[in-house]
């Protein structure tokens, strides 16, 4: 179990007068699995962007343990141990499943290090293990471009696992998945959490219920409610803006 928590304190992001995030504060404890829900435009994706360095906050602090994330770029934040899975799965289509995971595998990231990189037996075993975890062993040497949508989602999760991050940000992992795939994914995320922190952004309330952990509801860029799924589902403010419709 690793020991760094994620702190967001008073974070605001303003695009041309539009407040995508408005004084958002959030703490994710080490090893916690947190679900974040909210209607469209609530600022879920912007929050992810701020944490991973894609968007600079207009105000507020974002810390991972003692490290200030607001001054770092995407690559350094990723190297620090924060992994992100996008809503739309993006993998490298021309590379095989194996090569995709190989690139994600925790290792020095500089050009020279990459040139001198030699695939050791240990690394190959680790890659094989991660691929097996997401159930893609049969496809290991197929180009990622020919995988199905669900398989691409899993490959992305495999890449995240190979990255060995302390904190995983997962954006709508089950969008477009079948029920069986959804269940499989929920089980996978629950098993991942505990050894590392996971933040899941999701629309699918059944999925969030299946996760069975603490839920944060965002609305108009700030936290509307926080607690167990039953707590937030009964919160009158949440019902008004989100669930009531």
């Amino acid at each position, binding site marked *: 179990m690793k020991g760094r928590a994620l702190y967001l304190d008073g974070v605001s992001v303003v695009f041309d007068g539009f407040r995508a995030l408005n004084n958002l504060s959030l703490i994710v404890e080490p090893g916690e699995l947190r679900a974040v829900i909210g209607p469209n435009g609530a600022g879920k994706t912007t929050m992810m962007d701020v944490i*991973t360095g*894609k968007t600079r906050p207009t105000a507020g602090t974002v810390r991972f343990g003692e490290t200030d994330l607001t001054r770092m*770029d*995407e*690559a*350094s934040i*990723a*190297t620090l141990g924060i*992994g*992100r899975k*996008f809503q739309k799965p*993006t*993998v*490298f*289509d*021309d*590379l*095989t499943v*194996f*090569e995709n995971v*190989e*690139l*994600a595998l925790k290792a020095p*990231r*500089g*050009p020279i290090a*990459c*040139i*001198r*990189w030699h*695939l050791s037996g240990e690394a*190959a075993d680790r890659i094989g293990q991660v691929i097996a975890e997401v159930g893609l062993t049969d496809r290991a*040497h197929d180009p990622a*471009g020919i995988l199905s949508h669900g398989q691409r989602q899993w490959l992305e999760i495999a*890449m995240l696992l190979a*990255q060995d991050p302390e904190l995983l940000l997962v954006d709508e992992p089950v969008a477009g998945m079948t029920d069986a795939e959804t269940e499989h994914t929920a089980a996978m995320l629950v098993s991942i959490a505990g050894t590392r922190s996971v933040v899941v952004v999701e629309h699918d309330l059944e999925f969030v219920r299946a996760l069975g952990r603490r839920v944060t509801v965002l609305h108009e860029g700030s936290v509307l409610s926080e607690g167990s799924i039953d707590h937030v589902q009964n919160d009158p403010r949440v019902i008004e803006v989100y669930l009531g419709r």
Partner: protein
Amino acid sequence: MSATLADPADSRARLGFRAGLAGAVLLLAALPALNTLPADHALHVSDFIVSVTGKWICYAILALSLDLAWGYAGILSLGHGAFFALGGYAMGMHLMRLIGPRGAYGHPVLPDFMVFLGYTDLPWFWRGFEHFPYAMLMVLLVPGALALVVGFLAFRSRITGVYLSILTQAMTYALMLAFFRNDMGFGGNNGFTDFKELLGMPLGTPGARAALFYASLIALVASFLVCSALTRTKYGRVLTAIRDAESRARFLGYDTTRHKLFAFVLSAMLAGLAGALYVPQVGIINPGEFSPGNSIEAVIWVAVGGRGTLVGAVLGAFSVNALKTWLTSAAPDLWLFVLGGLFVAVTLLLPRGLIGLFGGRRKGRDA
């Protein structure tokens, strides 16, 4: 791991491919030798063929360098001709210094154009170019430094795609304008010419021609081997990943600016090397080499051959230039139509280039 899984048919094909390449290199290597046969011999090869092939070999190195940047790293440079020309100018400066007192004005130190323009001293940036090793260093460092600066500024501010292309085109355009100026100290409009010797070898003789030919061929083979080894490392795969989904690679923790910069600088140095080998063979270098049209032509070699495959780049350089050499004498008015048509045909009908026709596997997508 991927090598261990390759099936036997694949490795046979690879063996045949390598044998084909080796055969092509041997065939090229035979040309200067066949040139020494008597003129009425059936296998005699004319001076023209040797010198024109020597030029094409240099173009092939340029194509390789561009393919490394474009085909693998996704950096479509429309200014690679600038790196080629800078390498050529560095070599030209060495050759000018070797003329010594044999110039038309007979000045012991200053090249003719400096005497003509009223220089009294050699400008500081000309110092040291009389030494071959120093000049060779500059052949690599000057294009590399330019690529480093331009690349750093561009990649850091995430200028990609067509913006980057236009920027590189502007770069070579600006350099062309600058080199046309007399007060730059590079001979202005006329550039450098009337070279006498290189490494003690009088230029323009059959011996020098053959020596330069072999030097270029060795450089081509070496560059090819280096590039192909490089692209098979994890670094090569990182470049492919950056080309296809740069932002994803960044979220995986790859500092894409550094990776692209590394590839771009390496590519620029290779282009500089090509230019340096080219100049003593054609005997002249002038600001026209910087013209954006030259860079674009290099792009079409790579596109025609098949980008993202090193063989394709080399094949493209040879085939397009062969076509150009034939057509510019057979039907000069047609050449630009054909060249323009090549752009249209290769983008619409043959996105994987000639290599695609032979069913070669290209590590790339049609974007």
